[in-house]
């Protein structure tokens, strides 16, 4: 185990070292990007929800995507994973152009996402949820499915892999339970474990901490760090600033659809543009009897 620790330490350290020399400004190029997005725009009627000029995600690092409510984080997530269609823009994954690619194909080439509202398949057992995640299963083809001898051995190895992950996520006692009977936090764990069944190169977590109790939060943080140690790139959307500060190697801040700041967590949280976006430009002004109108005007400034 101490050996493991040494290795894991070096993964985190190397991710941070690689990003140490990167200048903290929006749209900055990274030394080894796994994903590069250009001119991504999505409007709903007159509202431009996402308008990202250029952004790169560093391979092997944990990158946080933060921003106030309505900043367009989840929309941006949906666009690059193919679950929503951009009005314009191009983006590449592993140097391969992937805009316009069907979402299931993106998952197959190693870009796997989770959802803000957990999508555990309630009326299926925990183990079936997990098995569903495995890629390239012979028995998923219609005619092969009829002949169990064609896929029995693969099913077994998929099951073993699933058990390994369930033990790691502390769900191994639940394998036969319907996923719908799990608690909210357990469902988050299950969804994360299921995504790992697909061997992602880039795992994209949409608000992994939403509605999770503090004790479970700690273990989720551990799991996300473990993903990095195993060489998986992590991109996550989050509101919880403590968590962002704790685990991310790099932070990208969005506001009103645009990337307004980038940098290591410490630097970003001191960035005036970020503070203004979150709290409004006049947040330090004294609240008086007319406090309400003050708050309103500060909202107006930042909007």
């Amino acid at each position, binding site marked *: 185990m101490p050996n493991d620790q040494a290795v894991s330490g070096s993964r985190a350290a190397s991710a941070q070292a690689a990003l140490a020399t990167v200048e903290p400004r929006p749209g900055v190029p990274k030394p080894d990007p796994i994903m590069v997005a250009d001119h991504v725009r999505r409007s709903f009627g007159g509202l431009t929800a996402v308008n990202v000029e250029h952004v790169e995600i560093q391979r092997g690092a944990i990158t946080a995507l933060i921003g106030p409510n309505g900043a367009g984080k989840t929309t941006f997530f949906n666009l690059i*994973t193919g*679950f929503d269609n951009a009005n314009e823009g191009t983006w590449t994954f592993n140097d391969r152009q992937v805009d316009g690619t*069907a*979402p*299931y*194909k993106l*998952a*197959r080439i190693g870009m*796997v*996402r*989770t*959802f803000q509202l957990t*999508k*555990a*398949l*309630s*009326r*299926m057992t925990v183990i*079936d949820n997990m*098995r*569903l*995640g495995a*890629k390239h*299963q*012979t*028995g*998923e*083809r*219609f005619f092969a*499915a*009829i002949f*169990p001898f064609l*896929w029995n051995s693969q*099913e077994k190895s998929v099951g073993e892999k699933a058990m390994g992950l369930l033990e790691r996520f502390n769900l191994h006692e639940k394998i036969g339970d*319907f996923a*719908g*009977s799990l608690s909210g936090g357990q469902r988050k764990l299950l*969804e994360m474990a*299921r*995504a790992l*069944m*697909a061997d992602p190169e880039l795992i994209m977590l949409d608000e992994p901490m939403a509605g999770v109790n503090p004790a479970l939060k700690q273990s989720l943080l551990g799991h996300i760090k473990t993903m990095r140690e195993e060489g998986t790139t992590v991109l996550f959307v989050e509101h919880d600033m403590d968590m962002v500060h704790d685990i991310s190697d790099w932070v990208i801040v969005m506001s009103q659809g645009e990337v307004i700041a980038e940098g290591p967590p410490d630097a970003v949280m001191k960035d005036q543009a970020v503070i203004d976006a979150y709290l409004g430009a006049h947040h330090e002004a004294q609240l008086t009897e007319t406090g309400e109108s003050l708050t309103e005007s500060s909202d107006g400034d930042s909007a």
Partner: protein
Amino acid sequence: MDWSFVLTQTLTQAIGIQAIIYCLAAIGLNVQFGYTGLLNFGQVAFVAAGSYAVGVIVLTFDLSLWLAIVVGVIVALVIALILGIPTLRLRADYLAIVTIAFSELVRLTVRSIAFKDVLGGAQGLNGKLGQDFHDTNPLPADFQSLPVLSWTRQDLWVVIVGWILVALFTLLVWLLVRSPWGRIVRGIREDEAAVVSLGKNVFAYKLQALMLGGVIGAFGGIVWAVAKQSVQPDTFRPEFTFFAYTILLLGGAARVFGPIVGAILFWMILAGTGEFLGQAIQAGWIDFLQPTDVGNIRFVLMGSGLIALMVFRPQGIFGDRRELALDAK
């Protein structure tokens, strides 16, 4: 009051030709709705495709019944593609709307005067449709009747082969749903986006499920045409689909044996109440009903029974209550 007549008739119909036809349609629906969550309200269109394939190929074109069966399967597959390609990318409700409209479109087209030469118009197609099949009947020529079940020699042969078909399709469904293929379609029923996010081509699986269910339904139509030696356009009304859904819910959706138990029970209740009421009216036990009311009353009873079932046992006879109770939607 002739109790033995009531019992014989009830039993004969409970496992008779109608039960087989509806059972096949319900097995198809079970694949589509029970396992994959596709709301196909036009299953009768697939049944009609099977029946009309037999009618047209055998009667209009004077070709072999075996060719007709192949054509029936192909037509069912084509219908599934026509219905599925535009609608399966949309939300589930769209398929429901499109399929129910399509099934009526099929019925009104086949009964129209414009195609009378080929499809027989409102009179349908009547003649020796199933001769090729009935020629294979291995039962002795002097066969009279089974002890309790009142089938003719010809009907008994249809019943035997019909239940073999039911068994084969049930086996096929059982093999499929316990495979990784079945896991994907059940996942689609629960949440499509989650399955997409795991790299599965959801659209292709939905299309496969629609096609498989359609082909099984078409076999119901083939059995119908062969058994009755007649194809009537107005038997393919939307009620047929709703009865098939009743059967599926009665037995328990997403259960391999659900459609079989459901079909037998459905026809047992329908025939049992019908025969009983008929006999009771004749014997003068009931004086507020006319014999002509019986046909409708039994559907009233069936409907009430279905409502009671939905309230007290929503999972059907075979279903797992936990699977329903957890449905958060």
